[in-house]
């Protein structure tokens, strides 16, 4: 069996526009005065056709509209895309179609439209349940807006998740404990809880480099917040299934699992990445990043940049990086087939240190190991 089949096959669609740029965000998102959604529709459809021709006959497990802010897409555009998707691949019985939504760009009517188009799961960028913090994160919405949007989403979709960013400026452990408590009481069955990462090239990054952005938690406080997060979520019946993702068992994001389980995914839209196994080669694909340039390329028949063929070593590293993020860990047999499994001595040493465990053919990071996962991976990959 081809390795990717262990993870499945998904489709990622990138919508690169937002109402404003958040100061912490390093996603490929742009603010545009106006967007000709009809033109974008044609481009997306053309790209779907192109990738579809290469992956004919595959069963599609998931579709994910990410961004940017895909909730700014016209429901008609989403509908047209999903219609083309259905006519291109074979749909899995439990097809998951997620759309990322910003609480500021929501009205009940649009959500109905997305639902009718075929979206069956929404992931909302709530980010914080404190107005003061939303303001400091540069968000356009209030807590009240977020709650209203969330209620609407829940009334329309069975599966609704939301995101919070913690380890923010001047956030105490107690603050986070109570905010998370409230979030858990709201949550349906899935939560993404990210520690704030200050990325280079963002407004936050610049401020930090200039000596600003005071009051970020120390590593120790960050670690304590992470531990509290694990405990509270676990107690609420939504344990971590990945470093930053929590769900009731069975409610995990299937699309994201494709990434972590080393499945194949097609990436369509500006800056979208993909992994496609075609014949003997696993390709890493990436599309042109700038919206206008992508549009022109896609209209000319090829929105991607030149593809890269991955070596087995690269595939193994990637499986290690992604697989260990999952609580269930990775399958050693798959790594071994890539001829680059970590040395038994390394595994033994890290096991003795309590960082990993190897049972029934699966290599997992322990709770202690997961919080220093980058070091664990570096040690294993060395």
């Amino acid at each position, binding site marked *: 069996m081809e390795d990717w089949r262990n993870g499945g096959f998904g489709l990622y669609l990138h919508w690169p526009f937002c109402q404003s740029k958040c100061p912490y965000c390093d996603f490929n998102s742009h603010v545009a005065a106006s967007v000709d959604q009809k033109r974008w529709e044609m481009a997306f459809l053309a790209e779907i056709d192109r990738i579809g021709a290469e992956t004919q006959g595959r069963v599609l497990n998931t579709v994910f509209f990410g961004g940017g802010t895909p909730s700014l897409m016209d429901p008609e555009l989403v509908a047209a895309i999903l219609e083309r998707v259905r006519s291109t691949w074979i749909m899995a019985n439990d097809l998951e179609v997620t759309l990322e939504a910003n609480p500021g760009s929501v009205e009940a009517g649009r959500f109905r439209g997305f639902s009718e188009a075929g979206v069956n799961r929404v992931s909302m960028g709530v980010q914080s349940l404190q107005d003061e913090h939303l303001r400091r994160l540069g968000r356009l919405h209030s807590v009240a807006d977020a709650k209203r949007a969330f209620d609407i989403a829940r009334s329309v979709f069975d599966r609704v998740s939301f995101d919070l960013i913690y380890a923010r400026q001047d956030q105490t452990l107690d603050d986070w404990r109570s905010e998370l408590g409230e979030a858990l009481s709201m949550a349906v069955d899935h939560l993404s809880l990210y520690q704030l990462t200050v990325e280079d090239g963002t407004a936050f990054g610049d401020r930090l480099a200039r000596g600003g952005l005071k009051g970020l938690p120390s590593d120790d406080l960050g670690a304590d917040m992470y531990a509290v997060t694990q405990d509270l979520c676990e107690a609420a019946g939504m344990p971590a299934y990945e470093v930053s993702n929590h769900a009731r068992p069975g409610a995990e994001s299937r699309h994201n699992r494709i990434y972590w389980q080393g499945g194949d995914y097609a990436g369509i839209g500006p800056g979208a990445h993909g992994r496609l196994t075609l014949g003997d080669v696993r390709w890493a694909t990436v599309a042109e990043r700038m919206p206008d340039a992508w549009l022109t390329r896609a209209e000319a028949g090829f929105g991607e940049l030149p593809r890269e063929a991955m070596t087995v070593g690269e595939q193994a590293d990637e499986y290690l990086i992604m697989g260990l*993020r999952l609580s269930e860990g990775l399958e050693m047999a798959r790594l071994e087939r890539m001829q680059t499994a970590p040395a038994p001595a390394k595994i033994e040493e890290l096991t003795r240190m309590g960082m990993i465990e190897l049972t029934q053919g699966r290599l997992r990071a322990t709770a202690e190991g997961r919080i220093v996962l980058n070091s664990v991976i570096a040690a294993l990959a060395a």
Partner: protein
Amino acid sequence: MTQLDRIRNFSIVAHIDHGKSTLADRLIQMTGTVAERDMKAQMLDSMDIERERGITIKANTVRIEYPAKDGNTYILNLIDTPGHVDFAYEVSRSMRAVEGSLLVVDASQGVEAQTLANVYQALDAGHEIVPVLNKIDLPAAEPDRVKAQIEDVIGLDASDAVPISAKSGMGIPDVLEAIVTRLPSPKGDRDAPLKAMLVDSWYDAYLGVVVMIRVMDGVIRKGDRVKMMQTGAVYGIDRLAVLKPQMVDIPELGPGEIGVLTASIKQVRDTRVGDTITHERKGTDTPLPGFKPAQPVVFCGLFPVDANDFEALRDAIEKLALNDASFSYEMETSAALGFGFRCGFLGLLHLEVIRDRLEREYDLDLITTAPSVVFKLHMKDGEVRDLHNPADMPDLTYVEHIEEPRIKATIMVPDEYLGDILKLCQDRRGIQQDLSYAGSRAMVVYDLPLAEVVFDFYDRLKSVTKGYASFDYTISEYREDNLVKMSILVNDEPVDALSMMVHRDRAETRGRVMVEKLKELIPRHMFKIPIQAAIGGRVIARETLSAMRKDVTAKCYGGDASRKRKLLDKQKAGKKKMRQFGKVEIPQEAFISALKMDS
């Protein structure tokens, strides 16, 4: 061929920055030795490093023709000597080639430690001395006070000191006249067998080895076959010249004259400074009193940052050593730093100069281990061993006692900083020997261990006196003391490159500084790491680097996979620059910083 009484040979002695090079430039310029358009500031400092730092490292020489007021034209040979203590040895040997000195003192600063050290060498060499007060253009100049100081501190008559501004050129004609009228002419016998002193030698990319000589007796001519009396080697003279300061060929050099020769000599190492050159046939039997070669006193390890550069480093060191006989080296291996060389230097500046040249001229990145002095180990079996590297310290049960080099340090400092200086010297195990005043400046003489001076002494001195102190030293003797080897252990593994010899009483302090520094420099690991300083089996300082608490990427989706993979590749490449001590990886930068000598 010049009449003896029309020759004056001299050097200029001065504390650094008092204007020695500027004065030399003026003398060259005013006598038209170098055409105006070819003048560049500091004509005689030719090495890049000398020019950049404005210090003279190698002695240089220039021949000046000067039409004096008495109507005669004189040949003035100036040998520009190095000012720094590391090269005191070179100073002393170049002084033996001349009969007089200009003592340059900055009239706004007064006598400094190097003024003293250098003038005493000139006096030792029997020189006539003409005091010159420089920088009198400065508002802060106090020529009268400085004159009095020269008389009080040095004991020289300064009533006829020549006031000048080397910068503006004021007073330069008076200096030229004083050279002619107040310095003695050389002596020598033109008809005696050839006797010439080998003053210096260096390598020139076009000419090969160039030898500077001072003729004492006899005449040397182009084409002569000459013998180096110490080495016994015989050469035919290819070229004979004087330096103006560029080479100008000359058919012969007679008594009292200074010049250079080339003779197909392969390496500077083939020449001995202080050797006597005579004719192969009908030569002299009595050589000039020789010099003993300069001994390296400071040692350190030089390792390539990139292990692949080892061969390149070997090459570069060999090449440099060919032309610097005072620099020694031998191969060394370190668990921490891999393959490198243990090198010996005349002092810290010499060390820096060599390291700079290796890095600059040979494009190498180097790690320098902590400088150490040469200890003498008196073994129980009566043997006496030199210890150049603390890592080679034998088991103490075989050692009867250990001796270390002591220096006599002269420090001149404005009153208000005296207390700080005394404390600094006391902290460095110094023993006060003398304290006197010259105006508002104090002069203290301390007996100090050299080992304490190579360890950031200059820096401390500069910082506690805001740069107002001056310092000079000579090595005095070896003396026994309570010395021990201190090892550094990281996660219970000894790190060889960090071990050092210290005085027992200072070990705790030094150990504490080192473990604290390392705690900052070693990145956190997944486990906690004890960092210890120990003497034998006894821990004297300890820090614990706590385990890393968080190192995980919060968000990692499909779009991040490539980026994360590239990051991992970088980490893997980074690991190659790490040194493994047991389970601990120490980045090379940590060694570089921990060993950074604060000089």
